[in-house]
Each structure stands twice: as C-alpha cells, then as structure tokens.
C-alpha cells in the first residue's frame, strides 16, 4: 500500500482512467450501427 499516490495524482489518474473507459464504451456502442453502414458500403460500393 505504500504505492498509494498523493491525492492530487490520484485524481489525475482516475480522471484519465474514466476518460479511457468512456472511449471503450463509445467503441462498444458505435460498433453496431456504424459498422453495419460501412458494411453496406463495402458490399454495394460507394454510391
């Protein structure tokens, strides 16, 4: 536990971690409609 960070750094770390988690969530949610649209394009060619 001696690796506990100073509160300032701890907040900074957590903030970045949540931002990255948000990115991951965004990828998860976008995976469905976005890739489906791209797939249509790949099959039918760009219209």
């Amino acid at each position: 536990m001696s690796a506990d960070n100073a509160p300032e750094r701890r907040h900074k770390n957590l903030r970045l971690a949540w931002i990255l988690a948000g990115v991951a969530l965004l990828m998860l949610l976008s995976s469905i409609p976005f890739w489906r649209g791209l797939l249509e394009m790949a099959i039918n060619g760009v219209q």
Partner: protein
Amino acid sequence: MSTATIDLAHDHDHEHHGPPKGLKRWLFSTNHKDIGSMYLIFALTMLFAGGVSAMAIRLELFLPGLQLLDPDLYNNLVTNHALIMIFGAVMPAAAGLANWMIPLMIGAPDMALPRLNNLSFWILPAAATMLILSFIVPFFPGGGTQINTGWTIYPPLSVQVGMSMDFLIFALHMLGISSVLASINIIVTIFNMRAPDMKLTQMPIFVWTWLVTAFLLILVIPVLAGGVTMLLFDRHFGTSFFNAAGGGDPVLFQHLFWFFGHPEVYILILPSLGVLASVVPTFSRKPLFGYSSLVGAMIAIMIIGMVVWAHHQYTIGMSLGAVSYFMIGTIIISIPVGLMIFNYMATMWRGAMTFETPMLFAVGILLMFSFGGLTGIMLAVVPADMQYHDSMFVVAHFHYVLMPGAIFGLFAGVFYWLPKWTGHMYDEKLAKIFFWVNVISFNVTFFPQHFIGLAGMPRRIVDYHVMFTEFNVLSSIGAMVFGLSHLLFLYIIIKTVRGGKQAENKVWEGAKGLEWELSSPPPFHSWTTPPKLAAS
C-alpha cells in the same frame, strides 16, 4: 478515508518494506511486481494448455484417417488452441512484462491504479475456468454439442452449437474486460507516472509499444464484445442480427470479428517487437537505431492496422472497389513493419555482437518474422488469395508471424529480464540448447505446411487426402519436439528462480535503462523517490 489513515498505512509499510505473508500477498496484491509475476505464471500455465491441444491436433493429423479424435472434439481443440494461446498465453505474458517493466523503466513507484491492476489479473483465472468449462461441459449428459466453429465463431454455425458456446461468449467477455482494464491502467501509468524529467520521447521503445498496444486494445476489444453479445442475443433472445432468414446478415459478424481480429495481431506482436528494442542494442553494444522512426512506424501500424480488417474475408463476395482498397491498404502495412525490422537490423549492423539467449531469439525473430511478413504480402494479393484463403498456407503464414513475432519476443524478454527479477543468472548453456531445439523444430513443423497449403489442403480439417501425407508426417514430428521442448523452458525458469549465480545490478554489459540501476532482484517497493535521468 481520511488523509490520516492513508499516511498511517504509508508509514506502516515503510517500517517493514517487505511483502505481506501467505496467500494474502497474492490474492490482495497491489504490487506491480507480484501482479506481473502472477500474469507470467498464468501465461506459462496456459502456454502448456494451448500446447497440449496443439499436440493433440498434430497427432490426429500425423496420418490420414480418423485415429484419435472425433471431428467435433478436433474442431473444439482447434478453437481452444487459438483462444488459449491468444487470450491465455500471449496477451497475459505481454501484460506481465508490462507490469514488471513499465514502472521500473519509467521510474514510477508502481502502476497508476494498483487495485484495478489486481482486478484485471484476477478476472483472468475466472475467464480461463469459463473457457475450460466450455470444453468440459459437452462431456456430460445434456451438455450439448462441442464448439466446432474455430476461434472465429462465425454464425450460423455458432448458433447451432450447444450451451458451451455461451460459456465461451462469457469467457470472451471477461477476457475482454480484463484486457481493457489493464490497458487503461497502462496508459494512465505511462502518461501520469513517468519520472518528472522523462519526456514521452525519452521512454524506452518497449513502453512505447505498450502505449500503442493499450490504445489498440481499448479501441477494438469493445467491438468484439459487441459482436459476441449480438451472437448471444441471436442464440437466446430471438433477435436476428446474423440470421439471414430474419433479415439479418451473417457477414456482419465477420466484419465485427475481424475489426477486432486484425488489430489483435498487432496487439500480440507489438510488445514483443518492443522487447527487441531493449535486447538488440544491449548485445550489439550500440545505441538503438532510429528511435523516432520506430515510434512513427508503430503509430502508423496502429492506424493502418485498424482499417484493413477485411483482408481476412476476401472470399465473401465484396465489390471490386472494396477488395482493391483492402488489398492496397494491407500491402502498405509492409512499409511501417519493414521499417521496424530494418531499424533492428541497422542496430545490429557494425555492432560488437555477442549471442546470449535473448539475442539468439532476437535474431530468430528478425529472420523468421520477416519471412512471415513476406508471405503476408503474398496473401494480401486478392487474386492469389483466392487460392491461399483458408488453406494450410495461411496456417503456416500466421504461425510464422505469431510464434517468432509474439512468443519468441516474450522468450527473449523473459531471458533478458529473468536475472533482474530473480536475482539469479539462468543456465546459459541449457537456454541455448532450448533456443536451438525450439527454433529448428518450429521450422520443421510449419515450413512444410506452406507446400501442402499450396497443393490444396484446407485448414481446420480433421482428415486429409493421402497426397498430403508426407509433409503432415514431417510437420507432426516437428510439432512433438517443438511442444516437448517447452518443458526445458519450464525447467530453466524453475532452476533460475530457485538459485544460481547472483546477478549484478546491471546484468548485461551493454544494457541501458533505469531498470538496471536497481538491485537484482529489485526491492519490493522501487523508485519510491523518482530517479533523475542521466544527462545523456
């Protein structure tokens, strides 16, 4: 929690400076070195599990005919071999190296989020249990059919499989969560925890490769999670995302899978190529050649690697424009990959080389990974791929990419840092024997597979036409030696952990980097005060 209690805990630990005793040390560990060791031990266990399934596959393929395995058991082993090796062996081993080395290399006292670190490791054994259950359940009455889909779990076949597919989907979810959490931790550590005067451009290349890998993981693992969730819904809740009869699209799953699957290849090989950036300069006694171009190349790999996934599916009937795009994009990847390989070759050039085991593996990677890359360019060519696709040629290709590219890099890293971790030198003579047996039997196993693939043997078949016999016999013999050679690796590791010549702080004559300024083994808490970088 008040500030006072934190300080108290702080003081308490400072009194002892040692790890807690017993099971608690491991179960509740927040120490990057302990968690790193656990990752590595887990990966080694899984390496053997994956290896045993590979040897069962090769035994069945030793001769034409069905001798050992039912077709579905064979297909299940093919599936497990891939999943265990990728998610169980290579990714955790690379994460283990990251946990051990990134804080030491950048002068951080620990990972940024130590409790999260504990969580991301301990999800793994649970996920592995799920994966093993998916294999065991069909042996019980009412357990349904075995997973006969391969690791790509393409529907509609994966919808036919029994409940073991659900175990597999949950295993994938947990493995994904573990990887994403570990990646978040690594990125935060690299951005926020570096020694105060270390700029991003002064970090060792190994840290850079993990930064890129972690970003790739965060971007692509959720897409896999989305894909398998849709599969789960198709199986149980009456949706038809992938069911053509219900207005869905079976090809959509392939796109989602390979949008994850192709970057996954770079996730597997980049940390290992990062190890080379430490190993090659050390044993060439010469500075790393082309630091900035290495960083640029890996960022290019990350970006281009995310937009060429459909070269795994040239045969699904895309338009001419689409396949042309994916072909040219794939061929273009050879530029950054070639630049990375070139930089390592240039680092060796005019060096004063010695060939300790890590360096032997590094040279092996440069030659064999290059060969795998070259067959990769051949595969990128769409018209030729119409023949190669789903043949044993592909199997040979990706084993030449992933064995040297990922696993040999991990071996190099383990031998390179093992004296630092344990404080003991490993047995150089045994390690060299291991290298030669390993490399030679690897080539005996996989080189012949190029030819049987070209001659027309598809992959993932349990039985084959007699015209492919000779090379399959050769390949199986090689595979047995290759598989068993890893017992020697295990023996060397155990021997080193238990004792051996005391390692110096700077284990290797030509080594550079912060990790070599610590004692061997390093204290339980290292870099509690950030180091100052040397003026150079």
